[in-house]
């Protein structure tokens, strides 16, 4: 077929077509934030500062690093992060 794949909506169309993002919590209070470093050079300096700023507000921050920025994070790392945090910040892509 030419062009993008088009599917017909099987739902009652009460929600917008665009896939919704996960529901956000009202604030970071009591939440664990995971910082995932994509391993591009210099990104760690930026992320370290974000870590300090969030920790300074009393937020629990956990740090992770993926092996290479050229591929999606490995499944085992994704599972670990998903089990250990409530929210994720990933960077720094340039």
């Amino acid at each position: 077929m030419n062009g993008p794949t088009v599917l017909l909506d099987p739902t009652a169309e009460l929600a917008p077509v665009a896939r919704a993002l996960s529901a956000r919590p009202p604030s970071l209070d009591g939440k664990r934030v995971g910082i995932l470093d994509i391993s591009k050079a210099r990104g760690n300096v930026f992320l370290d500062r974000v870590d300090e700023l969030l920790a300074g507000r009393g937020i629990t921050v956990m740090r992770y690093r993926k092996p290479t920025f050229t591929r999606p994070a490995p499944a085992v790392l994704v599972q670990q992060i998903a089990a250990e945090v409530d929210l994720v910040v990933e960077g720094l892509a340039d």
Partner: protein
Amino acid sequence: MHDIAEFESRSIPGVGVASTEFVPAAAAQAKSLGIDPKMVFVPHPIQDRTDEELRTLAEDAVERIVEAITARS
């Protein structure tokens, strides 16, 4: 962005941080992934900056990062 999309699918709100160079690529990827994850962009360049400059970028970005993963945005 793939990673953030993956976390979103596991009900973990996420935000990607990238330099402004990434803006058009991010838009294209969102279209091709079928999902538009939250992104925070910081001014290019990254590699050439001093540590102090990078820390300043982080201070400037942190509020937007928090907004992207809480219900305030």
